[in-house]
């Protein structure tokens, strides 16, 4: 199939349509506006319903309603808007409903800025809402991956009855790249016999709900969710090992930053330093097992993020103190240059030699 040149935000919308998504509820916020705009323009032609809500809070609750009714549904926003959606996300997780949430991350905290950042790692992987739940979080590093993972997100959400997040930074949302729209991989999905479709007088009422007033019942619901999350941890981890045969230094980076690190690795190679990269593609479940595969040649790990250091916590858990873990980050919409990372890498290697 021919490759098409598209902007990231629009490509994610096109992927959602291709994946059979039928409902989109959103609210304007930069730098993700091209996604709802694309849906407003294109969704109707494919039998989809687009609705601009009065707020992010309302949008996620519309998603909650549509997901409860059994529809394939999504919303998109950017960091402060995702913060507003946390209440609804927690309810959706608690009621065990599938949906896809796209976060095109911008710098924070607060109103922050509109340039790319990766400072929503905690919010995405630790749950910004209340209670014990997790989102499956996909972090594409290019637009082909953004498209493929968006399609996969709908399947995974339906398969596990759990909300799934596609986490792109502003760079992924705004840039253009050639994309091939492949047929989405289909899973064998359970029927949505729990959905609020109306009883038609043929069955007992279905109830979509996260309330359990009896503590023993609430504990039971929590255990059920945790059992499901364990299965996701066993089956859905995705990561890339790049140049990891005999690295002296191992980088860990995801999304846009991982691309810059790949350039950094080339620069280091020209200076005779062999470095590799562990690139998490699922941020949750985090690829802890990748850190068990690090060859003995490695002397240190350097985590690079467009944040003040969030994923670095998971890297430390993954390496369990076996190697020193360093961190380099730029924030506020500043993008790290390969040379800055080279300098930090040399400093680190000097320190551990």
């Amino acid at each position, binding site marked *: 199939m021919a490759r098409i040149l598209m902007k990231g935000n629009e490509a994610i919308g096109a992927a959602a349509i291709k994946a059979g998504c039928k*409902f989109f509820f959103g609210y304007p916020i930069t730098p993700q506006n091209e996604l709802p705009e694309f849906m407003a323009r294109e969704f109707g032609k494919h039998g989809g319903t687009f609705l601009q809500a009065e707020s992010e*809070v*309302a949008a996620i609750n519309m998603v*909650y309603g549509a997901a*409860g009714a059994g529809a394939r549904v999504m919303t998109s926003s950017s960091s402060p808007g995702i913060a507003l959606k946390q209440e609804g996300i927690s309810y959706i997780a608690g009621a065990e409903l599938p949906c896809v949430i796209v976060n095109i991350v911008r710098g924070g905290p607060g109103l922050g800025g509109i340039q790319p950042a990766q400072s929503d790692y905690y919010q995405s992987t630790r749950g910004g809402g209340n209670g014990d739940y997790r989102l499956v979080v996909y972090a594409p590093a290019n637009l082909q991956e953004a498209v493929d993972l968006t399609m996969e997100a709908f399947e995974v959400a339906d398969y596990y009855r759990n909300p799934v997040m596609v986490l792109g930074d502003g760079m992924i949302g705004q840039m253009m790249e050639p994309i091939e729209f492949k047929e989405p991989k289909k899973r064998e999905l359970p029927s949505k016999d729990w959905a609020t*479709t*109306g009883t038609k*007088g043929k069955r007992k009422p279905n109830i979509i709900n996260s309330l359990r007033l009896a503590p023993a019942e609430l504990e039971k619901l929590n255990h059920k969710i945790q059992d499901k999350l364990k299965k996701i941890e066993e089956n859905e981890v995705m990561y890339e090992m790049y140049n990891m045969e005999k690295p002296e230094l191992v980088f860990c980076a995801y999304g846009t930053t991982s691309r810059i690190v790949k350039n950094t690795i080339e620069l280091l190679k020209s200076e005779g330093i062999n470095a590799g990269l562990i690139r998490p593609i699922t941020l949750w479940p985090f690829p802890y097992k990748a850190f068990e595969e690090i060859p003995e040649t490695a002397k240190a790990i350097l985590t690079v993020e467009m944040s003040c250091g969030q994923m670095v916590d998971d890297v430390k858990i993954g390496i369990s103190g076996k190697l020193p873990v360093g961190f380099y980050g730029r924030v506020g919409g500043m993008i790290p240059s390969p040379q800055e990372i080279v300098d930090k890498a040399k400093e680190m290697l000097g320190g551990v030699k």
Partner: protein
Amino acid sequence: MAVVFKRTEGLTETPFHYCPGCTHGVIHRLVGEVLEELGVLGDSIGVAPVGCSVLAYDYFNCDMHEAAHGRAPAVATGVKRVYPDSVVFTYQGDGDLASIGTAEIVHAAHRSENITAIFVNNAIYGMTGGQMAPTTLPGQKATTSPYGRDPKTTGMPLKVSEMLATIPGATFVERTSAHNPANIRKSKKAIKKAFEHQLAGKGFSIVEILSTCPTNWGLTPLESLKWLEENMLPYYPLGNFRNSEEVK
């Protein structure tokens, strides 16, 4: 022997948890009866609130969705967009609809979302133990207005029906009361009209029903009915504020 009264098919057999003298039970029955009489129970999806009626999903004999506090109209919007031919309603109290959920109810009305809101106004937060609501009357004592509501610092009670009636998309708006049999019958008529309005595809409909809270008002059930009549009716006039004929 002839049956003169029985539980409507619109309600399940689960006993209500409501306090003695609270009119939620009566209003539940009215909604259940209307859904049964219209023959739409199998096509109905209700959205329950957070508040005293949080467990409404156990009482209505149709598919139900439990929403977050104030968000029922947004959840109902999501359901209705998926099933435009189904009957979708919210059941909300005054803390839920008139305080934390003002944005959601205003914009569901603004879009003329083809849903029906049943709004139970008892001028207080019941479930959390009797705090002041936007609908609490001036001078009325609540746990967070222990000396009586002072309009100088907390404003005058919000008249939701009058406010929503200013929105073009709110095509059926009526306020009724549940304090005596005559008004209960009128409430049922209004609820039926609102659902018929939805079935005809005429857009957003809401029935505000004045209700009692003996427990948190500190009154007996009988005194509560009287208090509603003497204090709430003068401030919250009953009647129809909007119907689709006027909209034309």
